[in-house]
Every structure is written in C-alpha cells, then in structure tokens.
C-alpha cells in the first residue's frame, strides 16, 4: 500500500479518529529517532565540559547544601524529619528536581529544534521522548548522590522503597504535562520561558522538599494545596520508611497526571503546525 498524505486547512479535531491514528503512528515512528536524539543530546551536553556529569548533580547538591547550612544555623525549622537532615533534604530536592526538569523540558527541546522543525518533517514526539530519556539519564546520575548520602549516614532502605517509583513517575508526568501545555504559548512568546524560571525558583520553597509541611500559616495552606506535596512526601516516605500515609492520594494524582499528559499531547499535536509557521528559526 502506498502511503498517501493529505494536507488541508481543516481543523484536526474534525477528524478525531484520524488524529488518534496519527498520534499512535508518529509515537511508534519516533522511537528510533528519539534514541538517536537522546544519545546526541547526552554526548553534546557533556562533550564540551571538563567536569562532565558533575553538572547533573550540581544544582540539587547546591540547593541541598544551602538548606543544610540554613538548617544548621537554626534559620529554618524543618520539623521532625525522622532521618538526618542532609538525607531528608537531598532526597527531597532530587525528587523535586525531577519535576523541574520535566517542566522545563518541552519548551527547551522545541526551542532548540526550531531550525529542524521549519525544514524537516519528522514526528515531533521524538523530541519529547528524547527529552524524557535525557531527564531519566540525568535522574540516574542524581540518584547516585542519594545513594552516597544514604550510605554515608547509614540510613537503612526498606525493600518496599522501590514503590517510590510511583510518586516519582507522578512528578515526572505532571511536569511534562504542564510543560507541554505551555509549549503553544511559550514557543511564540518568550515570556513563558522567563516566567518558568521565576516560578521554578519560588516553587522550591512552596514545596516541602527541604522541610516537613507546616500545619498552620499561609505556607501551611499553600503546601497543602500544592499537588506536588503528596508526591514529594510519599516518594521520600516510601524510600526511607517503605510506606506512606499518602499512597492513595499519590495514586489518584498519578492517574490524573497521566490523563493530563494525554490531553496535553493532543493540544501539542494541534498546535505544532501553527507554531512551526510562526516561530521561525
């Protein structure tokens, strides 16, 4: 059968069946390219550096060190952390970093691929898949930091710690979903990129990555409404204690974030042809 492509100005939502078929087709067609792009990104990311993978560990390490200093000077009341504070904060910031990387990824990969997008027709999902793969690779590097800290402080890890994968997946998926939702506006208006930087630097304080959530005050309200709170907390609890009181909330959030991701993918499909035309190279 000869492949036939038809290009018309009709909205893609008019033919939902075709839209879904094309989404599945492109996703499967983009696997190989995604691997290539991921391999390229990882090599180019570190080929021109002297310290290489240290730069994956750098940001969470820096944040953690700052919190440890604040805490040791009694400037921060972290609450009852249950484990040595450095362990608590490093696990928290690494988990939070996963969300942050996922949030920034879609806009940054689309921005970096401007030149290709306006000249080559390829499945754009490959850019996102490669981005996810790269986040995971960087996460594995960061996880070694966690292992080092756990060993140093002789914190035992229960066998059910593997369940931490569930809330971590939630953090990753919710980050990507929000990031993909921002692509249509962010690819046109650089404001979104700037705003993301501002939000990210504030969000780390509004998420209980480095402290246990307070029950009172404005911060208490904000952290209780922050959907990242149960995910971060349960990831940490599962890893360090093997169980979490928030496991059901976590499961609901993971399911909701997967639904959000699918929806954001549809928006992404609808938006890309318009964006490519407008964002130039």
């Amino acid at each position, binding site marked *: 059968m*000869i*492949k*036939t*492509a*038809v*290009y*018309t*100005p*009709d*909205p*893609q*939502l*008019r033919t939902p069946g075709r839209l879904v078929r094309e989404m599945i087709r492109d996703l499967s*067609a983009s696997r*190989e*390219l995604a691997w*290539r*792009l991921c391999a*390229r990104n990882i*090599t*180019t990311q570190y*080929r*021109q550096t002297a310290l290489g993978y240290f730069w994956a560990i750098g940001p969470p390490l820096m944040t953690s060190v700052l919190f440890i200093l604040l805490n040791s000077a009694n400037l921060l009341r972290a609450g009852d952390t249950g484990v040595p504070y450095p362990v608590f904060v490093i696990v928290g910031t690494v988990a939070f970093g996963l969300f942050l990387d996922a949030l920034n990824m879609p806009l940054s990969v689309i921005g970096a*691929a401007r*030149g*290709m*997008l*306006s*000249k*080559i*027709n*390829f499945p754009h999902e490959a850019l996102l898949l490669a981005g996810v793969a790269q986040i995971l690779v960087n996460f594995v590097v960061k996880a070694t930091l966690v292992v080092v800290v756990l060993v140093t402080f002789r914190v035992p890890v229960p066998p059910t710690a593997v369940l931490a994968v569930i809330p971590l997946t939630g953090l990753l998926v919710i980050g990507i979903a929000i990031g993909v939702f921002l692509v*249509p*506006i962010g690819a*046109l*208006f650089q404001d979104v990129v700037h705003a993301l930087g501002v939000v990210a630097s504030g969000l780390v304080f509004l998420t209980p990555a480095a402290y246990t959530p307070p029950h009172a005050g404005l911060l208490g309200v904000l952290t209780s409404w922050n959907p990242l709170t149960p995910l971060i907390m349960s990831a940490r609890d599962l890893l360090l204690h093997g169980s979490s009181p928030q496991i059901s909330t976590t499961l609901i959030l993971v399911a909701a974030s997967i639904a959000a991701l699918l929806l954001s993918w549809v*928006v992404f499909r*609808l*938006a890309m*042809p*318009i*964006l*490519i*035309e*407008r964002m130039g190279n």
Partner: protein
Amino acid sequence: MSEEVVIQVEGVSKKFCRSLRQSLAYGMMDLAREVSGRPSQGSKLRSDEFWALNNVSFSLRRGETLALIGRNGAGKSTMLKMLNGVLRPDVGRITVRGRVQALIELGAGFSPILSARENVYINAAMLGMPKADIDRALPEIMEFAGLEEFLDAPLQSFSSGMRTRLGFAVATQLDPDVLLLDEVLAVGDLAFQEKCMRRMDAFRRRNKAIIFITHNLYQVEAMCNSAVWLEHGEVVAQGRSIEVLREYLDTQERRTIAEAKVEGVRHKARATAAERAYLQLKEDERPKEIVEPPPSDPLHIRSVEILDGAGEPCDELPFRSDLTIRIHYEAPKPIIGPLFELIFFTDDREIFIASMLLDGPGPARIEDTGIVDCRIERLPLTPKVYRVVLAVYQAGYLVTEVTTRRTVANFRVTDEGLDSVAMRGPLALTLLRQGPPVYVPRVWHFYDGQGGEPLATVEANFAD
C-alpha cells in the same frame, strides 16, 4: 487521483504576516480556533497579512521532473515546505502519494561538535531511515560525499560545501518516491553538482518524481518536463518546461526593454500590453522620453526608430529577420562629410558595429532635417534584448563627434517560429536565448573514417 499522479496541488494558498508581533497574536487566535475545532478562516486576509501563495494548482506524475521558477520571494520554498508537510495550507488541498524526501536546507539538524558518522545517523533517522539501513548505507554515503577519510572528524572542521555534500548524500540515499530539492544544485563544486545531477537522473529513470527550485534555466530545460513559474505567490505560467521558460524569458526581456525606456532612452515605439502592465501605464500613456541632447551639439538626433522587415516600427522582431534602424536628424548648420555609426550591445557586451568609419563616406554634406536608414538583412543575432548606441562623426583632418553618443534604441529578437528549424538539441532554447549572441548557420557531417557518404548530417540552416 490516478495511480500515476504522485502530487496533486489543488487551489492552495498560504498567507504570511508582515509584522512579527501581529503574527504571534494571529498564531494565538489560530491556536484557539484549532483547539476548539472551529473551521479555519484561512481564505480571509487579516491586517498586515499577504498571500505568500495564492490559488496554486498543479500535479506531478511518476517519472516526471517539475521545476519551480521565479524570483526570490515568489513563494517557491513555501510551496516545497507545504508539499513536505512542514507548513499547512491555509486554503486548498495537497495530496502526496508515496514517501517524500525534501532537501530544503541540507544538513538541517547537524551538530557541529559531533562527528560526521554520528551526524549521518541522526540526520538519516530524522529523515525516517531505520538504523540497519543506515549501517548498510554509511560507506556509500561517505563515498558519494567524497568524505570517507573524515568519518570521525567533528563536523565543525567541515567546510560548508562538505556539509552540503554530506546532507545531499544522506537524503538521496533514502530512495523516496518524490524528491523535493531547494536550490541544492546551486551549491557545491562543479564535480559534485554533476554527481548530483547524475543521481537525480538515475532517480528519474526509476520512475520517481522530482520537484526542484532553481535559478539555472539550463537545468530547467535539460532536466524538467514541466515547470511552474511563480511571481508574488501566483502562478504566472505552467505547463511544458520549454513553453514556460519561453514565456519567462520573454517577460524578463520585455521588462528589460520597458525599464530601459523608463530610464529615458529616446525611442519611438508603441508600448506593448505586457510593458503597459509592468509599468502600470494607462492605455494611451507612453514612457517619458527624457534624454535631450545638449543644444550645443552640431547635429541633433530627433528620434530613432526600429523598423521590421515590412518597414513597420516595432521593438520586437523575429529571429533572422531584416532590420532597419531609422535615424531622424536635424542639422541647424551644415555638417561636412557625416559618418554614422551604430554600436550593438547586449548585457553591456559590445557585439558588432555598423560604422561608416569602416564602410565609407556618404553625402558630402547634410543640412536641415533628414533621415538616415541603416538596413541589416537577416540579422544574425540570437533571441535576446539588444541596445543600440549611436555615434556620429564628421570627417576632416581629425575625426570629431558631432552629437552626444548615447543609447538610441532597444529592441528584442524573439524566437518566434524557431522550434521547427533549429531547436532540436536538449539545451536549444536556453542556449539560443541565454548563450552567445551571434548565430551562424552550419552543417555537421559524420563520416566512418572509410571515406564515402556521410553517416549522418545535422543541418542548422534556414529555408530562407
């Protein structure tokens, strides 16, 4: 759509926006519309928008090669991007059967710090080639690009020509059903260009279709069956490449003549319909005749006419026709031993002169008003635009000029009625119209070395 048609473009339009901010705002509106599934308002222009392509239709069959020609900004690259699915039409419909490969910009997506090998893998994957195929094709790609020994060198050490070669080698390795090329053949050295053309030819022979953008009209004539000429996003002409080329060249030449007149060359001839359209003149308006010789000249040239074989004023005449240049002069005081000289130019190259400095003197003196005709039979000039400069001398102990030397006429030789006699070769049209200006009839004979009758005879002569 029949099996044979691989590309069908039906009434396709595309609009762009002149202002960046406005364009972004329109982008948001289009997004909202798309997400809500409302039908597009593509057929209406909003403020600051213009048609980059307007109502373009054509089709392409297997084994055919189509050229997109036109000036920069005519919409050629936009068309290619739509055929490749990178841009979506605002109006109309494009149907593409089979795998399409576009070389819009060679080596898009190449990373300078990766090696050639790594870049080939990424580029090929981006163009949809599975890894196993790339493994197999890699040696051939590097060989075709002539870069075998640079396989592991980082791309930043490559010249732009080397990168282009690599890009072309990868893209043509994919064996698509339709190949889209954007001025690819304009880059690279001659040897590589030839290689590219050979590869395109092999491609065509395997019954694949090619669309390419070029400014090289020789390539259009030699390689394309059909052509589409775009101007300001609209199709000016389309059809058999030779006919489109002819119309394209005709229009260019008419423009040259019209522009020459605007520049103020004193030249009496009726403006043709095409010129009037180009100059946006009303029916009875004529280009201004500006150039006035200084009043101190002893001889005044009042007007110069180009007359065709029948003695009618014209500014176009068929190939090999008789030409008369008629000069109306006025000499307030007698000029002793006047010698007229006409110098013929094309593209600022001097081609020949018709000079009484060579031919010999005319009347002993001229006075008041009069006419000088210079008649040339079967003008041996190829179809092109020519410019005539007039100089007039006075013979004496010293030869002195008696009028200000200047361009007095522009005319155009057309290729009307030529195809049947002298246009049998593969580059006949472009060579005749873009090649050297002088045409000399000739006959070719082929012998087998044993003597005797010629094996073949090629006659480029005219029944006249």
